């Protein structure tokens, strides 16, 4: 797996049980999960109605490029991210340094 820290890439989470931030933080610390996440039943119900886990890859313009319901395997996720990040880097106009 490759290092993504310097790439125009971010991993964001939506936890589905509607926890308050404190409770969510406790779970994430216990599981050693270090990505930014919110916890919302309503958002999860809308975006992942067919089950958890669900994954989306969204391109720099905000268009959904990949979607998996159920864990597709790390190879599949890796390949999709690599393809999307390469496309973003090839077109730096759309890949500005936004977010953290």
């Amino acid at each position, binding site marked *: 797996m490759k290092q993504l820290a310097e790439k125009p890439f971010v*991993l964001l989470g939506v936890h589905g049980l509607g926890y308050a*931030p404190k409770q969510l933080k406790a779970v994430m610390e216990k599981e050693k999960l270090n990505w930014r996440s919110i916890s919302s039943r309503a958002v999860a119900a809308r975006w992942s109605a067919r089950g958890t886990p669900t994954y*989306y890859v*969204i391109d720099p313009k*905000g268009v959904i490029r990949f979607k998996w319901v159920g864990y597709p395997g790390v190879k599949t996720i890796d390949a999709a991210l690599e393809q999307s990040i390469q496309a*973003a880097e090839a077109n730096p106009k759309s890949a500005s340094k936004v977010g953290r």
Partner: protein
Amino acid sequence: MNTLGRIATFMNRLLRHGGFILAFLAACVAAQDATNPGTPAAQCQALLKESQGATSTYFQTTNDTERQTIVARVDKATVQLLELVEKNPKEPFALEALTQVITQEYWLNNHTSHPGWGKQSPQARAIALLLRDHLDSDKLGETCKRVNFGFRPECETFLRTVLAKNPHREVQGQACLRLAQLLAGRVEKLDSIKEQPELVRRYEDLFGKDYIAALQRQDHSKVMEEAESLYERAHEKYGDVKLPYDETVGEVAQGDLFEIQHLNVGKMAMDIDGVDQDGRPFKLSDYRGKVVLLYFWSEY
């Protein structure tokens, strides 16, 4: 490193605990017969137990030989169950046993040590019997649900036939919804495998090369249009039909339609607003300019 490695481990753990718990039916058998060994009902129960026992040990296997043994056991029990119904088509367990055959073929198809089928897969044979003996049944709702995950031409034919010919409104409504799901789901699967030659080959082994080629040549936007109009029909005409887990056909149809229109590949992602684990405001649209992997998760 590394975030991705950590997610992978985390997800593998989830998968072992959460996924693939096959819900086998317990109530296959008319009770009075079940205790009498040698009756078809008792044989049916024994075969269900055999495949349930085999699949439930799958995740304890440590090597390919063990896995192949389990796949062979499920394969054998599935074919025997089908043959039992073929010999005893009027038994009260026939419909549920055939529905179970459909489910077990999915399990087999998902395990690559299974070589695939000739033209007459258990699903195809089960569906032929269902259409012959149970087309008028008021109990086909669950069967329609199982069939919607199917890829074979027989699955589509089954749902179209039930929708057109079954006399019960509840069943028609479920067939309508499940046909929409089958069509939309098939397009989604075709799209997701097209850049993965290994998977395309697997699909060809399972379902036939010509058939996969024919599906790939279909106009996918037309298929999605039909799926949308079936969802609309399910919502408008059969909206109040009840499904298990307190849902209705109308609710599921509307949810799926929303998904097709807003959450499919190629659609603009809706914004998400919330508060993160540190109490800071969170907006998905703040990350325009980056590739986002958006991960919907829960601890189990």
